[in-house]
């Protein structure tokens, strides 16, 4: 038998792989074991075979069949997950992404419906099919460990959290986009050929000029998933920007998109058409569709009226702002600090005081120094703050854990101080905390303390299903951020009904903001689908009608502001809680 074996060298199958083009023009690639070399080695190496070798051979045949993907569509991942059963809408989403969207998609489920599960299923599916070996998962820094753990525990995916420059070289890495885009990480990340990239909280990629977007655009990826509950926050073109990452040209160039789809910055020419075009690349599941059976959420506007000293302080700050605004506009100087002060005075007098003090330190003019000093004096003499008093009253109404959200660090400090004074245990949570500290604070909140006081940036992505109460101390100016806040507690895994209190101060700029928020919600709804109750559940009809009337009969923003201000807020909000 030696002679025949010697002639095997020229055989094409002897090479590790060879390529053959058929008449059907589907190229055939041969891979795997080199046959003749293997037979030669079997003959000459004197390996002993016995009954057990046959058994192992049989087991190998069984294992290969057990692992194979018999069709293009069947979801293998479903039978490989552990400890949970994916919900029907999650399985359907994963199937659609593999079958129809070809592995490049925006997963835009409403907050709390399990986008992570969907992404995990899709990644697992491609891993099982052998189409993905290297995967990069970019998430906010605070979620790196949570994602890694979930991929390992639920999907049995051997994911590694990124710790240093070398971590990126692992096959499946979870890191943050903020780290990845900085040297020396950037080069390491870009130099690897990733089969799949998943980017969580992808609404951070809404601006094509940012480093985030450019980095995401440069990372090589065959399959790409962008996860966000809010693919569009302020303008329609944000949607174009995201889609361009996935499939450049799907919505045309930016100018083509504007010409074809945009009536104005926030309104689609033909919402149905745009929704249909976008559905080729984006999947959005909504709670109202019954995909997930979440307990009810009760959103309630808590109406507040400023006390006399607070009102005086607020009005004086408004006057200062107006004067400053006019001056700055005439001198073409940035009005950003004024905007911040405007938002802070809506949040808390305490936060405004800190900014006023900073302004006082910076100003050179004697008259302005005097004005500011008087204002600070006025503000610091306020004997009691309405908002915090109301928060304490609310906390007295229920005996349960509660998360309080604010936009401002100063307000956070103030709330922490007041809670401590009242003997209520609380921990802070914010974006600036390192990963470990965030985990620690979350742990403390779940085990020991009653209240978590979180700032906007810190709240992103944390899951706090064990908590059922939320107080929004101030409202963000973006409705999607409010939705994300609520999604921290009202998400899959929540077993109790959730109560959300939105504090709103009467006769302040907040009412203008509510209107703008509302407009954004409408734009979002028209293209993407309905949002859950967010701004409040004030028996929308009445509120919607009055806002609509005011919008229709106003010819300028000032007039609209006046009309909104004059709305009979109390009559609208009567019987607001569900």
């Amino acid at each position, binding site marked *: 038998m030696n002679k*025949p074996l010697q*002639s*095997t060298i020229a*055989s094409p*199958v*002897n090479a590790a792989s060879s390529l*053959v083009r058929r*008449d*059907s*023009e*589907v190229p*055939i*690639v*041969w*891979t*795997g*074991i080199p*046959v003749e070399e*293997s*037979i*030669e080695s*079997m003959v000459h190496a004197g390996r*002993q*075979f*016995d*009954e*057990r070798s*046959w*058994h*192992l*051979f*049989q*087991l*190998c*045949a*069984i*294992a*290969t*069949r*057990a692992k194979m*993907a*018999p*069709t*293009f569509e069947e979801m293998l991942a479903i*039978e*490989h997950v552990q400890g949970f059963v994916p919900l029907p809408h999650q399985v359907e989403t994963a199937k659609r992404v*593999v*079958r129809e969207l*070809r*592995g490049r998609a925006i997963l835009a489920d409403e907050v709390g419906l399990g986008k992570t599960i969907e992404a995990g299923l899709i990644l697992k599916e491609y891993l099982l*099919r052998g*189409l993905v070996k290297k995967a990069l998962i970019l998430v906010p820094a605070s979620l790196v460990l949570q994602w890694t753990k979930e991929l390992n525990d639920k999907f*049995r995916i051997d994911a590694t959290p990124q710790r240093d420059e070398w971590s990126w070289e692992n096959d499946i890495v979870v890191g943050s986009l903020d780290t990845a885009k900085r040297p020396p990480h950037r080069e390491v990340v870009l130099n690897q050929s990733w089969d799949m990239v998943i980017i969580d909280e992808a609404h951070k990629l809404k601006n094509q000029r940012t480093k985030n977007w450019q980095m995401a*655009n440069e990372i*090589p990826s*065959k399959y790409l998933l962008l996860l966000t509950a809010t693919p569009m926050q302020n303008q329609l073109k944000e949607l174009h920007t995201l889609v361009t990452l996935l499939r*450049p*040209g799907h919505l*045309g*160039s930016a100018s083509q998109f504007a010409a074809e789809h945009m009536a104005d910055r926030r309104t689609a020419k033909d919402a149905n058409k745009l929704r249909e075009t976008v559905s080729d690349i984006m999947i959005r599941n909504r709670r109202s569709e019954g995909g997930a059976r979440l307990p009810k959420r009760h959103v309630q506007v808590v109406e507040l009226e400023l006390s006399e000293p607070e009102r005086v302080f607020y009005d004086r700050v408004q006057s200062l702002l107006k004067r400053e605004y006019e001056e700055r506009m005439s001198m073409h100087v940035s009005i950003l600090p004024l905007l911040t002060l405007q938002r802070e005075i809506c949040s808390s007098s305490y936060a405004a005081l800190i900014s006023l003090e900073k302004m006082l330190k910076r100003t050179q003019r004697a008259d302005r120094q005097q004005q500011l000093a008087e204002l600070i004096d006025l503000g610091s003499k306020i004997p009691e703050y309405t908002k915090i008093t109301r928060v304490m009253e609310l906390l007295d109404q229920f005996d349960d854990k509660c998360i309080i959200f604010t936009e401002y660090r100063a307000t956070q400090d103030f709330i922490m101080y007041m809670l401590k004074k009242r003997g209520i245990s609380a921990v802070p949570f914010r974006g600036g905390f390192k990963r470990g500290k965030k985990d620690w604070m979350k742990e403390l909140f779940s085990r020991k303390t009653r209240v978590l006081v979180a700032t906007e940036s810190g709240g992103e992505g944390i899951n706090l299903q064990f908590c059922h109460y939320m107080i929004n101390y101030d409202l963000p100016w973006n409705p999607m951020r409010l939705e994300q806040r609520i999604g921290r507690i009202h998400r899959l895994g929540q077993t109790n009904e959730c109560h959300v209190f939105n504090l709103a101060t009467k006769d302040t700029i907040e009412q203008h903001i509510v209107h703008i928020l509302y407009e954004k919600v409408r734009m979002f709804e028209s293209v993407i689908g309905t949002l859950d109750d967010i701004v409040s559940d004030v028996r929308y009809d009445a509120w919607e009608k009055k806002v609509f009337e005011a919008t229709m009969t106003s010819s300028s923003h000032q007039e609209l502001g006046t009309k909104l201000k004059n709305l009979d807020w109390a009559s609208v909000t009567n019987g607001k809680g569900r």
Partner: protein
Amino acid sequence: MDVQHPLRTDEERLKFCDVYFDAVGAERTVERPMYREYVLPRDVDKELTDRPFYWLWVERTNQHVEPTTLRLAFSDEAKQREDARLVEEHQQMLAAQQQPTGYDILFRKPKQTERIDLGCFRLEKLFDSVRERGKTVSVCPAQAPEGAVHVPWMMLNGLIQQVTDSVSEEWFSVGICLANLQVEFNFYDKIAHIPMRGCAPSRVLGGAKHTAAEAVQRAKAALEKQIAQKDHHWAEEARERLMDDLAQLDTYYSSMRHEDDPERQAAMEREHQRKREQLIAKSTPRIAIQLSQIGIVGLPLVR
């Protein structure tokens, strides 16, 4: 067992493990309903437990280490039952100690069982192990008398993969008679029921009239002919999709030209090229034939 979709039940997985551990010489120390304990020989231990540095240390320092015992539960009920037993045994062990140390009380935990299901770490390791150990074989029927004349067959097993942005796989087994180059499809399934014993390859191949290379060519031609007769609609669709996607990409980048800024234009062209390559790599339809097993099988001459 569903031949096309094996190992979907707990019972099948239990049988798979029993056969595997017997074949690799692991000692079965406990056998209860849907539960087994196996003591692993060192070579198997290395394959099934993911700890290369541990083995490096053991071997470099000539350590004597206790062999690993795997405690495998094949149903939830078995896991619950055996975990409870292990807790009880642990408590008895602590109670029996005259003076348990602080370490014993604080850190020593009862041993735990592993639930074996599809996708679990251990089963994946077992799959890896059989993929290596079951790659080649040379056998003839156990019943065949010593000195009997065998007709030599070469068996090639593997997967035919239709690959585009997703993949569809079909298992194949083709046998080629080395005496007359006869081709038999589904060869493995036709002989899988026959009890086999090991047979020296040179002995089986003694009656071969054709070379392995000829047999391989024959198998290849037969498989490719079979593949050519299949429906390739999927590939046509995939190719059309790819053409559409490339056209869309090209249109987009041609509308993004920066003629006034050569540097920016060059960067844009590089980006365009890179995205084209990614798309082509992902979506081009192709067929991959992956050979995973080779067998030399001597079948008695039927007169």
